[in-house]
Every structure is written in structure tokens, then in C-alpha cells.
């Protein structure tokens, strides 16, 4: 045992130990990536299952149908008559209808400003009190007037009104049912949920006149046209990549699939054949959506408040009609009704490969952690290297030193490197501030100017440093060490909150571990150009091109997300990734006067 220990300790002094870390880093990145690629296989993913015994999905007969169809048609006519009218008039009508069957109604107005535009509107909502319940809990049925795609949610609204009238006639609700009709699915719900929890900004959002109990769950309907559908699209992404409890998706999928015979799918993969490619595609789409963290539907704003919510979108051409959709909602609500507490038995962190295949956080987290660890390994390696005495030229060929004398550690001059890293991160506040405050039409131009500055900035900084401070090799190593340490630190923390964002940034920033200042000038320029390819502004432009969207739209969405929804993706990009990239490029351009 002691021999093992002493041999392990003597390994510490072996100079070969210092050669290993870069390879170790590379291995970490590779394994991290491959880890993600093997997840869709059957051995590593699992079928979904209902964890909460209280849910009992699909165990009740649903009676929505029959004469309700006539009521639905009547409401559909009324809704069609409101087409194209302004929000206030629409809300008046909805209020009349809701009051007509005895539901208490409240209204709320809001005005947000983001990217120079004003997002204002008025929500109308009704509270259906459970006759025998005690009003301490509530479930929400959200039906925005406009769908996610921008068209009018006609069938959805009519169906919600019919369902409301239908629900009112049952006395078996243990929770109040709230019917929310925001004008559109992104801003209105956020304003309502913020005000419901008294977390709203009083300058932008007016408070709610009526409230009920603690929200336990929410379903949103997105149903523009009244064609007969075949499958159900479940949208579950929340703001900042937070996901609802898996049991909600399981329960809705069960009710739709096993009880009503309507298959469901996720992430737009309506043609999922359960092959490896389909699973991988679904997973990547989910990761992209989670990483961007923006709002995916009317349900997204509920999730940060620990209220599980999904949006249901009927899809495809088939033979299921709106009554079937109504029964799906009825069955889901009956399941939610059975709950005694927030869903907590199933997973909050998961990656779905298909509607019924998932991996949980214990299985997928190591991939992002490995990516973050690779930066930490390089940081430690550079720290140790910076502490070694510099070798004089000429005498390292003959004497192969087999041990490292630990007393050879030199003093580290840490002030300049720390200042560079701290300064660069502080500088990151500027693009964050600018892109969240500028009006929308100026944004693309400002971004273009900023990208140009961003490419040139490392050159300027490098030139200034070499002229004024004459930094040493050790300081260059320390700069990179500190920068990578902060990057690894931030990405590990981010991985616990938003796995996909951490993974994406980690992957895109991984070349920063390996580039180093070299002696030859052309090689330095080559490295710098390569790094420019993975600069955050470049990636943003590339993403816009690949997605076929306008850069201005992307930026406006980002600004909207920050100002209205509290999305923190811009902080990760401009406050963590961009400073790390800048310091890395400065380092590559070389400011060592050796």
C-alpha cells in the first residue's frame, strides 16, 4: 500500500505528466461529444413511464361529445365573427360568454418595451371555482387568440369556451379551473403569470383583480384550423431551457395515445419512425430549443414558476375531430385533478428522443461536464507550467531530467493576467447592454459594427499590451489559465441550470483550449483567423444563414427575451463566451515578448 502511494507520488514529478493534459483535454471533448451521440441507443435511453401514482391517467370515461358539438359550433360562429377585431372588443365578447355560464372574469393590461417596439395588450381570464373544492389550488387552460404561427386560434378559442361550459357542469373538481385568453402566446401569458405571483413590474404590467389558489399545472391549446387531425404535437420547452415535469408529458401522451388512440410527437418530428437518426434529430432539436431558452409557446412562461405546462397542437390530416381534442383535454384535466401536490416524482431534467423515450440527467450530464472539465484541466496544466522555471536554451537536449525539482517553482506575477481576464469579462457588459437596449431597426447595423470591432479588438489589445507592459511567457500562460478556469467554472454551473446551452457553448469554445502563442508570425495569424471562425458574432451570423432567418429578427428575439421574459442566454454568450474568446485570441496573437 505504501509502495503504491510512494510510486503514485513519484509520478507527480515525472515530466511526462506535463505532456498528458492537452491529450486528456482533447479526450474529454471527444468523449463528451460521443457520449451525446450514443444516448439515442436502446441501451442508454429508457421508455417513459408514469411515476406519480396519483395521476391515474386514462382511467375515467370522458363524456365530452354529443350535444357539446352543437355548443362548439355555436361558439365557433361567434369566434369567427370576432375575426380581425381589436383586442378590447374580442375580450369584451369573451367576457360576456364566460359570464354567461357563471364564471368570474378578470382583465389585465400590460405594456412591455423591447428592441424599440412596444408589446402591449390585454388578457382576459375567468376562474371556474370548484364547487366542492377549497380553492387552494388551480389548474389553467390557456388559449391565446393568436397561435404560435401567427394565425387566429379560432378552433382553440371555441373549444376552450365549450370546455369551460362543460367543466362548469361537473362537481368533481378539486381545484379551480382558470381559463386564460391572452391576445398572443408570448407576452400575454408572461404578464399574467408574473402578476399572479406578484412578481410583475408595476410599471409595465397591471396587477390581477382576481386570483385563485396555487397553480398546479397548465395546458395551452394551439388549434387554428378545423381540419381533422391525426396526431398531437406536444411542445414542452420553457423559458431558459427549464422543462416541465416529465410526468405531465407522460400523462397527456398516455391519455391521447392509449385512451383516445391519438399518437403524439415532439419537437416537430411528426414522421418519427423510431430510428436512430430520428431520435438523434429529436434530441438535437430539443437541445437547440433548450439552449436558446426563448419562449416556445404559451406554456413556456409558467415553467419558471414551478408550474408544469405544455402546449398541445393538433397536427396532420386524419379523422380525429375537435371533440377528440376536447376529450384529450378533459382526460388530462381529470388526471391533473387527481393530484394532491405538485408533480415531483418524475424527472425535471431530461432529454426526450421521442415522445416515449428519454434519458435522465444522470445519464446525459457527464457530457457537458466533460466539456467544462476540459477547460479546467487545461487551466490547471497552464498554472503548473507557469510555475516552472523557464529552461535556458541549449542544455535541454543533453540532460534528460527525470525529476522535477519542486523547489524550482518561481513566483507567479498574477496581477496583469488577472486584470486582463477581469477587464475582458467586464467589457462583455457592453454588448449585453447595447443589444438589449437598442431599438430593433438599428440592431442589425449595430451588430455588424460590433462584429467588426470584435475581430479587430484582440489585435489592438495585443499591440497595446506588448508595447506598454512587455509581458512574459509566464504571464501569457497565466492569462490563458485564468480565462479557461473562469470558462470551465461558468460552464459547469450553467450545465446544472441549462445543459444544452452549456454544451453548445462548450463545444464551440473548445478550440480555445488548444491554441497557443507561437513564434512564427504567419502561424499566429492563421490561428487567429481560425479563431475568428468560431467567434460569437460569426456564429450568430452562421446560425441566421443556416436557419434561413434574418439576423435582425434573431437579435430582436434575443432583446425581447431579455426584456420581457428574463432569458439569460445573452449573459452566457456576451458575459462568458465572448470574453473567453477575446482573451484566447489576444493570447494567440501573442503578447509574449520572448
Amino acid at each position: 500500500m505504501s509502495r503504491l502511494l510512494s510510486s503514485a507520488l513519484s509520478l507527480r514529478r515525472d515530466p511526462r505528466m506535463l505532456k498528458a493534459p492537452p491529450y486528456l483535454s482533447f479526450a474529454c471533448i471527444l468523449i463528451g461529444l460521443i457520449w451525446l451521440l450514443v444516448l439515442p441507443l436502446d441501451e442508454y435511453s429508457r421508455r417513459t413511464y408514469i411515476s406519480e401514482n396519483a395521476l391515474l391517467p386514462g382511467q375515467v370515461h370522458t363524456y365530452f361529445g354529443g350535444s357539446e358539438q352543437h355548443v362548439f359550433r355555436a361558439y365557433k360562429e361567434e369566434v369567427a365573427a370576432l375575426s380581425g377585431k381589436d383586442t378590447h372588443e374580442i375580450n369584451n365578447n369573451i367576457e360576456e360568454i364566460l359570464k354567461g355560464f357563471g364564471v368570474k372574469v378578470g382583465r389585465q393590461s400590460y405594456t412591455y418595451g423591447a428592441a424599440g417596439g412596444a408589446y402591449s395588450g390585454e388578457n382576459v381570464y375567468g376562474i371556474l371555482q370548484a364547487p366542492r373544492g377549497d380553492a387552494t389550488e388551480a389548474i389553467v387552460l390557456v388559449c391565446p387568440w393568436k397561435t404560435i404561427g401567427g394565425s387566429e386560434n379560432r378552433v382553440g378559442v371555441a373549444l376552450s369556451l365549450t370546455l369551460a361550459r362543460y367543466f362548469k357542469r361537473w362537481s368533481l373538481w378539486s381545484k379551480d379551473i382558470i381559463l386564460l385568453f391572452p391576445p398572443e402566446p408570448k407576452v400575454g401569458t408572461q404578464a399574467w403569470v408574473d402578476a399572479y405571483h406578484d412578481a410583475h413590474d408595476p410599471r409595465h404590467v397591471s396587477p390581477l383583480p382576481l386570483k385563485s389558489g396555487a397553480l398546479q399545472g397548465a395546458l395551452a391549446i394551439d388549434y387554428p384550423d378545423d381540419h381533422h387531425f391525426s396526431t398531437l404535437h406536444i411542445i414542452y420547452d420553457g423559458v431558459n431551457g427549464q422543462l416541465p415535469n416529465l410526468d405531465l408529458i407522460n400523462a397527456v401522451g398516455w391519455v391521447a395515445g392509449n385512451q383516445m388512440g391519438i399518437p403524439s410527437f415532439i419537437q416537430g418530428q411528426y414522421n418519427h419512425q423510431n430510428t436512430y437518426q430520428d431520435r438523434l434529430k429529436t434530441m438535437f432539436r430539443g437541445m437547440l430549443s433548450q439552449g436558446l431558452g426563448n419562449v416556445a409557446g404559451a406554456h413556456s412562461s409558467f415553467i419558471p414558476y414551478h408550474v408544469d405546462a405544455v402546449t398541445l397542437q393538433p397536427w396532420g390530416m386524419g379523422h380525429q375531430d375537435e371533440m377528440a381534442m376536447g376529450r384529450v383535454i378533459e382526460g388530462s384535466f381529470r388526471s391533473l385533478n387527481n393530484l394532491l401536490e405538485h408533480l415531483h416524482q418524475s424527472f425535471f431534467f431530461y432529454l426526450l428522443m421521442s415522445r416515449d423515450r428519454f434519458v435522465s440527467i444522470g445519464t446525459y450530464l457527464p457530457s457537458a461536464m466533460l466539456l467544462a472539465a476540459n477547460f479546467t484541466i487545461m487551466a490547471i496544466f497552464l498554472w503548473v507550467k507557469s510555475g516552472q522555471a523557464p529552461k535556458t536554451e541549449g542544455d535541454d537536449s543533453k540532460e534528460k531530467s527525470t525529476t522535477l525539482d519542486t523547489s524550482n517553482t518561481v513566483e507567479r506575477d498574477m496581477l496583469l493576467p488577472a486584470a486582463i481576464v477581469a477587464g475582458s469579462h467586464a467589457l462583455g457588459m457592453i454588448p449585453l447592454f447595447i443589444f438589449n437596449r437598442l431599438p430593433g431597426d438599428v440592431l442589425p447595423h449595430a451588430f455588424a459594427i460590433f462584429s467588426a470591432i470584435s475581430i479587430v479588438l484582440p489585435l489592438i489589445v495585443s499591440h497595446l499590451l506588448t508595447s506598454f507592459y512587455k509581458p512574459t511567457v509566464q504571464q501569457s500562460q497565466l492569462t490563458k489559465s485564468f480565462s479557461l478556469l473562469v470558462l470551465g467554472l461558468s460552464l459547469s454551473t450553467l450545465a446544472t441550470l441549462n445543459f444544452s446551452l452549456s454544451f453548445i457553448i462548450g463545444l464551440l469554445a473548445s478550440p480555445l483550449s488548444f491554441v497557443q502563442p507561437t513564434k512564427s508570425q504567419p502561424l499566429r495569424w492563421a490561428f487567429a483567423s481560425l479563431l475568428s471562425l468560431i467567434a460569437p458574432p460569426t456564429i450568430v451570423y452562421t446560425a441566421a444563414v443556416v436557419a434561413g432567418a434574418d439576423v435582425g429578427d434573431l437579435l430582436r428575439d434575443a432583446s425581447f427575451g431579455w426584456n420581457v421574459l428574463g432569458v439569460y442566454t445573452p449573459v452566457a454568450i456576451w458575459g462568458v463566451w465572448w470574453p473567453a474568446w477575446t482573451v484566447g485570441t489576444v493570447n494567440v496573437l501573442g503578447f509574449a515578448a520572448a
Partner: protein
Amino acid sequence: MLLPIRLLAVLATSLFLPLAFAEHTNNWAVLVGTSRFWFNYRHLSNVLSMYRTVKRLGIPDSQIILMLPDDMACNPRNAFPGTVYSNSNRAMDLYGDNIEVDYRGYEVTVENFIRLLTDRVGDEMPRSKRLLTDDKSNILIYMTGHGGNEFLKFQDAEEIGAWDLADAFQQMWEKKRYHEILFMIDTCQANTMFSRLYSPNIIATGSSELDQSSYSHHADNDVGVAVIDRYTYYNLEFLENQVKDLSSQKTVGDLFDSYDISKIHSNPGMRYDLFPGGADVARSRLITDFFGNIQNVEVDQKENGALEEELLELGRTIAMLRQKEADEASQYNNATSVPASQPTEPVKHVRGATALTDDNWWTKKVVGATALAGCIGLWALGSFLET
């Protein structure tokens, strides 16, 4: 002080009764549900079905202890409010009228259950909540809920172990609180629960073996939950079809033989070894000995003058005891005639709510300045001393 005298009187009376016959004279039933929450509806309907069965066979409410930990009938999720059904045909409402629940809601705890069995309760416990059995009582004890290896979960918060139960039964035996017990339990791994019993005169039966689950029978798709468990369902089937009234001669053995493992989907178990005479005698006991209310009458056989003499003796003893009681009562009354002017309890001062007042603003500032001056003075003292 007065009570022991009365107790002595009762004891004296009982001493002179003729010898008891080896038969039970009264029947009791202890029906315990241990689960709460809506999705455990079937456990309560199990208990309620047993309740209705023993009531049908004559045991009165005063001799049934019914423990229901949750209210399924009035649960807002119940589509048929005020009812509990054990069958999806909804033919019979088990709750309805004429029900007496003795322990309800959070009163159903392990401690209360054990206190009930051993009768270690305080003076304030009402009679309806006590198991007032004697050594001639046959008791049916039925328990259902979520269980495991030698434990039964009470209300999702605590558990009772097989040893706790065995010790409670032993206490009952030592206190002569039962004649014979039929212990029936319907949970997962139920048979482990009676594996530790060591008191005589107990027949035990359970729904499943170690590492086996017990299953529900069927669900009602309008109530939305499973409404009865398999083991109880088949017990009830036997009891309703074969034991129609008190004259039924069906035995415990017949009941046990009716268990069909392919229908119950688990292995029900029985335990006869605690019964004197073993399996044969145990299985020959009638169902109505436990589920019904047979009142065996003990007829006094002796027809001689010794009876009058004994009665006379008894009368004299009672008179003497009464006299003693009267003497002691008068003594007590004399002792307690103290002057009424002295208060016997300290008067409780009720503190009213303190009123918030905003005056004294200047006082506060002065106090503050004084405090600051005091601290500075302390510091200055130091400077003075240090120089």
C-alpha cells in the same frame, strides 16, 4: 378514590358467577383502513365492504370499531358524492346511511390502534372508541392498505411492524381481552405481517406472500379509480353468496378453500399453529363465529340453596362496601371545606396587544445619542489610560 371501591364491587360480583363455558358470548370487529389519498379509494372500499358484511350478519355498531383515514365519500374528486362503491356496477353504496365511523382522518394512527387493542386509553376516551372486549369475545380484525415485509404503512407517514402487532395481541391475551381472533389482512406481502404472532387462539390469513404484491380487482371508469382489491373481492364473493344469514354452517376452512390463486393473482396464506387443536379445529370454526353476532347464553346449571346463600353473602358485601364508600365521601367533603376567599389558581394575566405609538421620537434620539456618547466615552477612557 371512589372508583376503586366500585371496581371492587364489580369484581366481588363477578367472583360469584358460575364458571364460564368454552364458547364466546360476544362478537367484535375491528376494521382498519390505513391509506389516505384519492388513489387509495379501494382500500377504504375494502374496509367498508367488510363493515357492511359484519353488520349484515348482526354485529351492532357498538361492537364494531371502524377506522377510516380519509374521506372518500366527500372527496371533491368523487363523481358520486357521498357514496363509496366496491363494484363498478354501483349496485350498493357502502357509505350511505347508517354508518358509524369511530376513528376518522388523522385519528387513525399506529398509537391509537395499539391503544385500542390493549385498552390503554385515558379516562376521557369515549366508549364508542374503545374495544370493550372480555375473555369471551371473538374478534375479527381486518386491516388493509399498503404494506411490505413485516410492516404496514399508516397514512403515508408511519408504520406498524409485525412485532408491534404480535406484542399488542399478547397484551390482549394477558389481559384476557379475547377468546379467539380471526386476523385478516389485505396488503402487499401481507402474510409477513402475521408471521410474528405468538399468542394463542388466533387464526390469521393474508393476501400475499413475501415479495408478492396484492392486486386490485377492477376499476370504475366513472369514479376513475380501482374500487376493490382482489383478495377482498373474492372473500366478499364467498361471504355474500355462501353465508347468507346467521344460520349458515359454512366454516373458516370453506372460506380458505374457496381462494383461487389464479383469480387472486397472489398466494393467500393462513396460519393455524396458534390455535389449540391446529388446522383441523381452526378450519372447523364457523364463519359466523367471527363475522356474525352469535350470542351464546350461559345458563346457570346449579339448582340448590347454595344460590340463595351466595346471594345473601353478596348482598352483605355490597352493603358493607357501600357503607365504606359513604364514610369516605363524608370525610372528603369535610376536608375540602376551606374558606372560599383564598383563590386556588393564580389569576391569569392576559396580555393585550401592544399598541404602536410614534411619540418619543426625540426621546429615542436622545437615548441614541447617550448610547453613542457612552461608547465613545468608553473608548476615550482607553485613550486617557493609555497615555
